[in-house]
């Protein structure tokens, strides 16, 4: 009997690499124009901020895919687009073979929403201060009508609190009675309340103390193993990303400049921007050597530089980089980078000595 259940049904297309989430050429532009009257009087055109400008990636079931980049590079916008908090301007989001943009009926959308959840950055803002913790955690259960009986809901909330390392008695308290790390545990419990398969984590530890960060990250890893979760992990902290991610996408000004498996990205970064980021990680074995600092600043995303948006800061930039935007190309098996210098052989490959 058990063996029968474990055999996958023959009708399902069982492709080993079928991704849980596929994002294709995702774009999102925010209208940052002045008010209509000002535009007319001051003869200004409409202006758009391209927060996300053609991002594509896939996330396989059970893996952790991380997006890293400096603040303002659009990584959080990607997260919000995927969970539906923002409308995309262009591109497709395909969740488990279903194009999210094609869904018209509310019931279908709700069925899809039940399968993903989000963990937010600021645990002080992500819990309603007027609600008790058990009501907060039970909200997804009630919204998706997973359990009807209120004592059963209470039991489920207690189980969730225990799962994230809190006590069931904590359910009667208000969020302000908890520390930042405990609040983030409550957020995780809420995110798990509707048994999601996929969690979007938008910098879940950047508001926490370093010691508490490790606790939360380990909790998230344990939960991933236990519940078979898939994570999209947004962070600017490379150490955190190295600890969590299987694969990493490096974002710069709304585009992905390099995608690689975590190990190869840290051992053999190819894109000059990735190298610059990695060179800023302090390393105890590098005492006495001169650190290379991040040069320059992120340009204004409303008027991005032409060609490769990284060229004003890039040590390898030439005339072509100023004219032509590079596309992602496979530079070694499973590793993609968007850089003319790599294609032309101007960048010297090989691992940075760390």
């Amino acid at each position, binding site marked *: 009997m058990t063996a029968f259940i474990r055999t996958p049904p023959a009708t399902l297309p069982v492709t080993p690499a079928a991704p849980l989430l596929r994002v294709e050429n995702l774009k999102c532009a925010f209208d940052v124009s002045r008010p209509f009257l000002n535009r007319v009087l001051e003869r200004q055109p409409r202006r758009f901020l391209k927060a996300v400008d053609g991002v594509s990636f896939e996330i396989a079931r059970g893996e952790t895919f991380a997006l890293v980049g400096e603040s303002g590079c659009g990584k959080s916008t990607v997260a*919000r687009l995927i969970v539906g908090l923002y409308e995309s301007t262009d591109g497709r989001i395909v969740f488990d073979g279903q194009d999210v943009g094609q869904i018209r009926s509310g019931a279908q*959308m709700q069925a899809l929403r039940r399968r993903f959840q989000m963990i937010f950055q600021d645990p002080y803002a*992500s819990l309603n201060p007027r609600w008790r913790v058990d009501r907060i955690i039970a909200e*997804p259960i009630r919204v998706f009508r997973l359990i009807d009986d209120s004592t059963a809901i209470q039991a489920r909330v207690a189980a969730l609190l225990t799962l994230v390392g809190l006590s069931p008695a904590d359910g009667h308290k208000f969020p302000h*009675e908890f520390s930042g*790390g405990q609040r983030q*545990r409550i957020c995780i419990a809420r995110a798990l309340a*509707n048994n999601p398969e996929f969690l979007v984590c938008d910098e879940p530890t950047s508001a926490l103390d370093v010691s508490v960060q490790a606790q939360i990250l380990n*909790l998230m890893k344990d939960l991933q193993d236990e519940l078979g979760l898939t994570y999209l992990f947004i962070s600017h902290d490379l150490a955190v990303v190295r600890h969590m991610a299987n694969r990493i996408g490096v974002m710069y000004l709304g585009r992905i400049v390099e995608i690689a498996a975590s190990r190869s990205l840290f051992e053999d970064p190819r894109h000059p921007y990735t190298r610059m980021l990695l060179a800023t990680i302090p390393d105890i074995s590098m005492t006495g050597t001169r650190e290379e600092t991040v040069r320059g600043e992120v340009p204004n995303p409303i008027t991005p530089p032409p060609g490769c948006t990284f060229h004003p800061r890039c040590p390898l930039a030439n005339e072509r980089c100023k004219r032509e935007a590079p596309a992602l190309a496979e530079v070694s098996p499973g590793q993609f980078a968007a850089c003319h210098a790599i294609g032309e052989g101007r960048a010297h490959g090989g691992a940075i000595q760390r």
Partner: protein
Amino acid sequence: MNGKPIVSASSGIKTPSLFARIADNDLFYSFIRSPLTVAAAVVTLVIFAAALCAPLISPQNPFDPATLNLMEGFTPPMAPNAFTGNVFWLGTDAQGRDIFSAILYGSRVSLLVGFAAVGFAAVLGITLGLVSGYVGGWVDSLIMRIADVQLSFPAILIALLIFGVFKGIVPPSVQDKVAIYVLIAAIGLSDWVQYARTVRSSTLAEKNKEYVQAARVIGVPAPVILLRHILPNVMGPVLVIATIGLALAIILESTLSFLGVGVPPTQPSLGTLIRVGQDFLFSGEWWIVLFPGLTLLALALAVNLLGDWLRDALNPKLR
């Protein structure tokens, strides 16, 4: 995970009783530490209680003609009437009506109109403010421009305008019956703007907080988000405005009644009593206007002081 709580906050402590929690409350502490506020609360409660129990405690029903004796007209306060020998604490008016009883019944009308007008203004203003702040775009612009236009007129002018329209439309036979509701609507409509503006600005701040986004991610409909998530978090400032607004509404009602457009003379409010009384001011019958005026002053001042205290107590920057 081993399933054992590892970072649980202390859970063995018993929840204190309701009384202990009130006594331990910050708000209660700041209340009891301010003698002026306690005095204001006592005055407010006494007037509320007196108005509520008017039929029980007033010596006569001042608006039942059968209880009035014209011979007792213009009796000064605390002095026995020349003909009947009856003593009236606060004197009587031209018809021999006991001023104390008239004040008790008058505060009833004033408070009823005040509370109802504040409730109407608050419900209208909160609803429009929530929608305006949450939806944004042209809906927001429309509601806020209407509010701006209305704010450029004095409240009394708007209330007078609404009353004028009412007098023009409604046949005179039913005017007295519905006048009090029109008064409530007129005061409410002239006062919703500040609720809408306050709630809108708080909503703008709250809607971008992540707890609202967490609700949106799981597909909670916008009206439910507004009612369950945002509304409880924007009620603090509304409470303060409503308290001060109550004093203003009572004064506005008295002003309108004083001008003769408020409640009909068959149901006089404090404002009507003052209007009637001022006719006798220069003929020496000062008590007819003074005591209703003092009651109005005490009520408005006490409620205002309570509102001021509440504003300071709820403002974390002044703690």
